């Protein structure tokens, strides 16, 4: 085979892998719903927290963090993410931040957990060769991206969101949340976690019986009708972040001339508030969580984002 044929074969294989990942993507949620999973508690099983965290007193506000698509599990975060969450925590000492929900599995199974391709994902994650790892990480991101699309698909969305909502409630309970209490629950999401949050909103509202707010940090927001069930969505928008507009470009319900779409009705009802956080990018140096990049006024990006989040949380508590 000539080198060109090898390249062609490799490109073909990559495309095939992406297509297969996309085709099988709804099966995890659907199989769980149908009761095909061996050990996973079904959609009607009582929600039980596996462990109790070090939260002594039930808090008045729970902030559930839903990450972007480049994540392998709920327990692993980048240092940058953790640093940002610590900043928010320092500004809101009375608020409990739930950091360990994995928003890309309806069963809460991490990619390195009990699943068919677990070894593949772990192998990619452990690669020492930085460039190869970064390149292969696209597969992990694509796998999680397909779950964002599952969430946005009207055929699968409700099933997927039910699973994620159960996971959120399970983690809330583990962090001291008392179901039935009047504590605030706010979802804080970034990137792909945006659509997952909006999809899960109505289910969470039914399960908790409490209004749900979302703080989207450059979140990708589609035309999911779940937006109407939310109390309010605060969208932190970076001026250099184009990825946040993917939902606006590709989901017809976001187009302004479709006046009766859920999104446009939510806009008219004043449920969506866009907050300009300055010249920030979606990812990389200069993004919302950057610790070394500074805004023109000298504020560190992560500090500005954390400050705005804290202000929004206080605004929610006052309403």
């Amino acid at each position, binding site marked *: 085979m000539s080198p060109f044929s090898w390249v062609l074969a490799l490109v073909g294989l990559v495309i095939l892998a992406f297509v297969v990942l*996309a*085709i*099988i*993507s*709804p099966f995890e949620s*659907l*199989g769980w*719903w*149908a*009761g*095909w999973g061996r050990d996973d508690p079904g*959609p*009607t099983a009582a929600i039980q927290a596996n462990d109790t965290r070090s939260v002594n007193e039930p808090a008045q506000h729970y902030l559930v963090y839903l990450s972007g698509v480049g994540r392998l599990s709920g327990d692993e975060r980048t240092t940058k993410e953790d640093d940002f969450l610590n900043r928010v925590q320092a500004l809101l000492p009375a608020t409990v931040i739930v950091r360990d929900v994995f928003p890309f599995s309806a069963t809460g199974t991490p990619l390195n957990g009990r699943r068919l391709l677990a070894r593949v994902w772990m192998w990619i994650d452990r690669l020492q060769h930085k460039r190869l790892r970064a390149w292969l990480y696209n597969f992990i991101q694509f796998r999680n991206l*397909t779950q964002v*699309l*599952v969430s*946005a*698909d*009207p*055929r*699968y969305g*409700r*099933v997927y969101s*039910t699973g994620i*909502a*159960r996971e959120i409630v399970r983690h809330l309970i583990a962090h001291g949340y008392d179901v039935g209490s009047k504590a605030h629950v706010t979802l804080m999401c970034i990137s792909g976690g945006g659509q997952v949050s909006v999809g899960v909103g109505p*289910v969470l509202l*039914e*399960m908790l019986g409490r209004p749900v707010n979302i703080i989207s940090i450059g979140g990708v927001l589609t035309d999911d009708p779940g937006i109407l069930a939310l109390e309010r969505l605060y969208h932190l928008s970076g001026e250099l972040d184009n990825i946040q507009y993917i939902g606006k470009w590709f989901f017809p319900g976001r187009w302004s001339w479709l006046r009766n779409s859920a999104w446009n009705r939510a806009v008219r009802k004043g449920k969506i508030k866009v907050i300009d956080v300055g010249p920030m990018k979606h990812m990389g140096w200069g993004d919302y969580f950057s610790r070394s990049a500074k805004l023109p006024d000298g504020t560190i990006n992560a500090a500005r984002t954390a400050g705005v989040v804290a202000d929004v949380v206080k605004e929610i508590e006052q309403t």
Partner: protein
Amino acid sequence: MEINSIGDFVAAVFDAIVLALGLNPEATRYMNTDVESIAVLVTVAFIAGVSLLLGQSVVLFLNRVTRTRFLLSIALNGALYVVNLLIWSTVIWLIGRLAFDVQQPIGIAMMAVLLGSAPFVFGFFILVPYLGLIFTRVLYAWSLLVTIVMVESAFQIGWLRTIVCVGLGWLVLLLIDRTVGRPIVMVRDRVLLKLTGVAPYAQASQLGRTH
């Protein structure tokens, strides 16, 4: 058509699908009423029916069917799809004969309509989240186009008349389904419900609250 081995048969099925997908009039070589051609085209339609339900299998999951019943439903849908196409082709042939004096035997019309199902061999792509919804429409449009081309090749009555035959045939089928055909539809649904636990064409809106 000469088929001497399973390999020949698989090759013929593949060839028929490729020709139909490309709207190639050469596909007419499979529009014969010999056993081999019938077997090839029934297989094409069966694969299409199976693939289509696999693509739309969310309904089965929502109804919480077991794995066994899932497989049974998929296979049964393949068979039901073939039967549905045969009924549709009969109606098309009748309209062609009564309205436009078509002289071709009914078997040729059946083969033409079976070929029209070829695009649905890609029905499993409907599973792809979000994009699958767009793909569904593309497949239905593609299948209708292939059916029109194949029926025109079979009847030789011009495009407009062919479109009238195919379109009217579809409307009549819909009418039969909702009027005189109701008892048959009910029996079919009851048998399916018994065998698979799922009423055919159950809707995603059946999904209830479970928490």
